[in-house]
């Protein structure tokens, strides 16, 4: 016997009603990442050997700083969604899966914030 009613036991066990949201934002971020990554690679070819002054001057351009922040946002969001699917497929039991997903999301969020702050500091210096 439980003080919870039979209805309370089954509530929430049905559809989450947002089943396509994860799938959709993974596609949206991947579409955004195609031009952003191509820009990033071409940029790296130009600045990979640059000294500090050159690199700082390069990133102080607001269009470049903006593209870099957009790349970081899309990239870390996409990474978080992708890692979640990998954990959901392979990590058991349920508790370990939830912990793995949460820890990865927290770490990737933090890395994203740190890198964006770094870009802004360089760009606004």
């Amino acid at each position: 016997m439980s003080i919870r009613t039979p209805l309370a036991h089954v509530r929430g066990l049905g559809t989450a009603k947002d089943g396509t949201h994860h799938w959709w934002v993974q596609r949206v971020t991947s579409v955004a990442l195609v031009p952003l990554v191509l820009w990033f690679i071409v940029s790296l070819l130009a600045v990979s050997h640059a000294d500090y002054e050159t690199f700082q001057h390069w990133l102080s351009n607001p269009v470049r700083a903006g593209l870099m922040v957009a790349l970081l946002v899309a990239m870390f969001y996409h990474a978080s969604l992708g890692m979640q699917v990998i954990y959901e497929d392979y990590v058991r039991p349920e508790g370990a899966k939830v912990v793995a997903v949460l820890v990865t999301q927290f770490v990737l969020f933090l890395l994203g914030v740190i890198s964006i702050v770094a870009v802004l500091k360089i760009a606004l210096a």
Partner: protein
Amino acid sequence: MSAANKRPLSPFMIGPYYKPQMTSVLSITHRATGAGLVVGTLLLVYWLAAAAVGPKAYEHAQAVLGSMLGQLFLFLWTWALFYHLANGIRHLFWDAGYGFELPDATKSGWAVVWSSIILTFLCWLIAAP
């Protein structure tokens, strides 16, 4: 364990149950490169954070990334990025409903493999100091 939990499951993809196919190998490689790229973001964050700290930290980061190990890691990261990019575009075409015929899937698969290899070497030839 209830009876419902004892229903047969299809076996895991890796093992003696399924013959590896070009399409399935490319599929798991997409996941592997995705996870590898996540690890690679640590280098990007390190590089940007070092540049934000100052010239000294930036020079140090450039030296670390320019070392043999750093260059090897960056080379693999370049290939993983091109592979995930090319195969990601292949996936987007599938999502839009194109390229499901077996000969098409095989052809696009080889296009992904070769374009990722060629673009990686092209990049490193251009970036060579």
